[in-house]
């Protein structure tokens, strides 16, 4: 059953066509009349030539070599791989949404603007923020937007000495990368032995050079930062702001809100919490919400309402400018808005409840076999450390490969960095108890397999379409495109 799949280029036959176009019905001119000779392409265009059925079969076969949430359990920590409701996909492709041009006159876009406006009202209530921009196309893009807004706020006050952003050691990689992109210096705050941000270290670190603290709560360890109030106070006291990385909001909807915890800026990964699909890596959407005093700095345009009319609002006095060519990933917002309308307040809260029950339940099953470094009530995800298994010869990465053989998508591995051999497990609200039971039983079996023959586990997977792939070779000898003469 192991086999590689031919590439498009290897199936190409000269003269084969997979398209049908109307014929050109305007009077034709010669190419040279319309384009200067020297601007014309002289290199041949080497795209593959396939029939329509050839294209369809190729990609259909590729799809069978891929695992999605619809294929099975996908407890990829931090990524919130919950079920993606099908109605969302249907409404997002309605022609009245999918085939709209972003520069259409306002009177022809009222439905789209109304949707964005009402979606914003929902997000405000969910997070206790006062205004949102939908421009960021993903979480990381939201982080950058948020930090730029914070920067513009400080600068507007003549406060030019704030050059540091604090982040906990357990932070997602996008946080420190964003800090640098915004021209700030990263200050890392350690965690204490409970896995929580070390409050004393934080108090020690804040001063008048602190621009912001970036935090996700619950943290990437799946733990609620219980000392959020004194943390917020410490940052605010020195004039810094609090940034909320909303990747983990799925744990707390209806229970607590970032704005109530003291956060000034929030981004949401609506491709996590609000059920929109990840698409094999995107598109996502990362709306950013802010408290009142930061509204003047948001990117333009915002979506506003005047009587019954919705409009793109460029009247944002101290705006940072634009983050996206147009208004962000509208097509993704449609799906999240649909989900929000179907869940309502009670449904969203129940989703968080079930996400947290599922995580605690699975943790309680797994800790019978595995080492759980932070053995306390978790939120929507938790961490297992495969350090003991690693000593026997098969670590977190090998356990992941063993799961592939049993039709489970593995948890996130080797993250957060502060736990050795981390497996970060997020079961989500849309999974049944039986699924968790089966996963736990499989994990138990894998632990036994390691006891019996760790070597074998360390060389898996065995049942996948390709075996363990040589990532080192891919780096040492990069082959990043197919080349005709190399075959």
């Amino acid at each position, binding site marked *: 059953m192991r*086999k590689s799949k031919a590439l498009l280029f290897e199936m190409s036959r000269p003269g084969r066509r997979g398209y049908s176009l109307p014929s050109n019905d305007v009077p034709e001119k010669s190419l040279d009349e319309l384009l200067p000779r020297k601007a014309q392409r002289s290199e041949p265009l080497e795209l593959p030539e396939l029939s329509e059925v050839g294209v369809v079969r190729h990609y259909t076969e590729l799809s069978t070599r891929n695992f999605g949430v619809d294929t099975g359990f996908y407890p990829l920590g931090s990524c919130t791989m919950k079920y993606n409701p099908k109605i969302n996909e249907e409404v997002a492709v309605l022609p009245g949404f999918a085939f709209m041009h972003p520069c259409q006159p306002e009177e022809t876009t009222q439905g789209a603007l109304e949707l964005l406006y009402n979606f914003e009202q929902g997000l405000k209530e969910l997070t206790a923020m006062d205004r949102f921009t939908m421009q960021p196309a993903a979480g990381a*893009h939201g982080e950058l937007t948020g930090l730029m807004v914070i920067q513009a706020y400080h600068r507007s006050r003549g406060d030019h000495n704030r050059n540091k952003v604090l982040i906990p050691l357990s932070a997602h990689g996008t946080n420190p990368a964003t800090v640098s992109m915004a021209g700030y210096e990263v200050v890392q705050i350690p965690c204490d032995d409970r896995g929580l941000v070390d409050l004393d270290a934080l108090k020690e670190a804040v001063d008048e050079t602190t621009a912001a603290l970036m935090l996700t709560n619950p943290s990437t360890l799946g733990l609620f930062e219980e000392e959020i109030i004194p943390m917020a106070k410490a940052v605010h006291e020195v004039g810094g702001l609090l940034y909320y990385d909303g990747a983990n909001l799925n744990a707390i909807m209806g229970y607590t809100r970032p704005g109530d915890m003291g956060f000034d800026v929030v981004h949401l990964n609506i491709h996590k919490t609000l059920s929109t699909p990840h698409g094999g890596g*995107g598109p996502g959407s990362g709306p950013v919400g802010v408290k009142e005093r930061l509204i003047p700095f948001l990117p333009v345009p915002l979506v506003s309402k005047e009587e019954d009319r919705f409009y793109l609002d460029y009247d944002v006095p101290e705006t940072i400018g634009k983050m996206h060519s147009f208004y962000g990933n509208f097509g993704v917002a449609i799906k999240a808005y649909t989900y929000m309308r179907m869940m309502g307040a009670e449904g969203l809260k129940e989703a968080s409840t079930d996400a947290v029950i599922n995580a605690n339940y699975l943790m309680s099953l797994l800790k019978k076999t595995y080492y759980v470094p932070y053995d306390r009530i978790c939120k929507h995800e938790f961490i297992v450390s495969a350090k003991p298994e690693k000593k026997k010869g098969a670590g977190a990465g090998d356990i992941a490969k063993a799961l592939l053989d049993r039709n489970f998508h593995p948890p996130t591995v080797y993250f957060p960095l502060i736990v050795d051999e981390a497996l970060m497990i997020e079961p989500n609200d849309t999974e049944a108890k039986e699924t968790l039971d089966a996963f736990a039983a499989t994990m138990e079996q894998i632990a036994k397999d390691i006891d019996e023959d760790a070597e074998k586990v360390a060389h898996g997977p065995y049942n996948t379409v390709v075996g363990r792939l040589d990532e080192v070779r891919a*780096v040492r000898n990069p082959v990043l495109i197919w080349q005709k003469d190399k075959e």
Partner: protein
Amino acid sequence: MGGKHYLPLTDEDRREMLAEIGVSSVEDLFSDIPREVRLQRELELPSPLSEYEAFKHLNELASKNKHFNNCVSFMGAGVYDHFIPAVIKHITGRSEFYTSYTPYQPEISQGVLQAIFEYQTMICQLTGMEVANASMYDGGTAVAEGAVMGCGATRRSKVLVSRSVSPLYRAVLDNYFNSRGLEVEEIPIKDGYTDRSELENKMGDDIATVILQQPNFFGLVEDMEGIADMVHGHKAVLLVSADPLSLPLLQAPSEYGADIVVGEGQGLGVPASFGGPLLGIMAAKSKFVRQMPGRIAGETVDSEGNRGYVLTLQTREQHIRREKAPSNICSNEALVALGAAVYMAAMGPQGMREVAEQCLQKAAYARESITALKGYDDVYAGSTFKEFTVTVPGDPAELNKKLLEKNILGGVDLAPFYPELKNAMLFAVTEKRTKEEIDTLVRELEGWK
């Protein structure tokens, strides 16, 4: 009721699970949230809708909008009404693709990984570059991140951008650069083209990246001859934002010496979706790969020698390099890139060339017909691809209102972007437009004022 059917736990399940956890109530699982920050009421959101009610509601919203299926569009400025083959939706709608995450576990993600590898290859075939990434958010962010790449490669902190580059992209660029303390200087335009002598004056050994667009925002085909040599003479990087659909006809950017090629890929079978999701294309000469942001798929072999694909060169990326990463990008537009790959595979070299030729011919016909009218003139002379600018005898917003009565989405008003251009519009004509539609537009313009 509502969407609760997405949540499979039954009350009985919950009871059993709480017992296994060893707590007596759900409340106990949330006791770590301090009382002071607990929401003491329920969220106030509209009451939940059933699936059918949700469909009806969304359908009502959608029906308030005009769109390409009930209007004839001449709008461009980076997003276009190009033909979208039916196969695309059926492939991107396969849920093994669209419900998967970034392919971190390659052995069960060969589908997405191979599709990215093929996409990268086709982008390089179009642009003549040697590496491409799996996508950026859109054309604007691709320009900004490409400019940053140039800064990384040259260890310089200032870039030059032509005023003929999309003002939407330049706005994003300014923003990205302003916040990290990098400098952007504009190269003025002359008759709609990048002013060559101004570029030469401003060029120096402090410049990291020179940013041009081909065809430029006005639809004009810039003269690229000699620019790369001049830029390279200062050890700087030439970045070009190119319309991928122009490349079957126009020189591959490699032919005129570009180092980095970015662009908006929406034309490659991507629904316009009110401006997003779009597709940021990014490709470069291989010597820039270490500075390239985003995911890159690479070929390798498995333990038995079978060919397979993995995400590679990941030490560039945020999850490994953290604050030293060239970019923070994590999620991208992978599914959109998949759609674009299906587009390129289905169209092939011939289909893509035909699309480009029809854009060129039909736009030329429209331009000639419109500028033959009294009161309508070229803003700028010169060869254009699928867009062109004309001055109109009055306020563009009013003209568009009138066109709308005939279900025509007219041109884009240039004044918000170029205040010096009053009563000037940018029209786009794609392969979808027919002679009759163009003639109707021309008649309507003629009858105005």
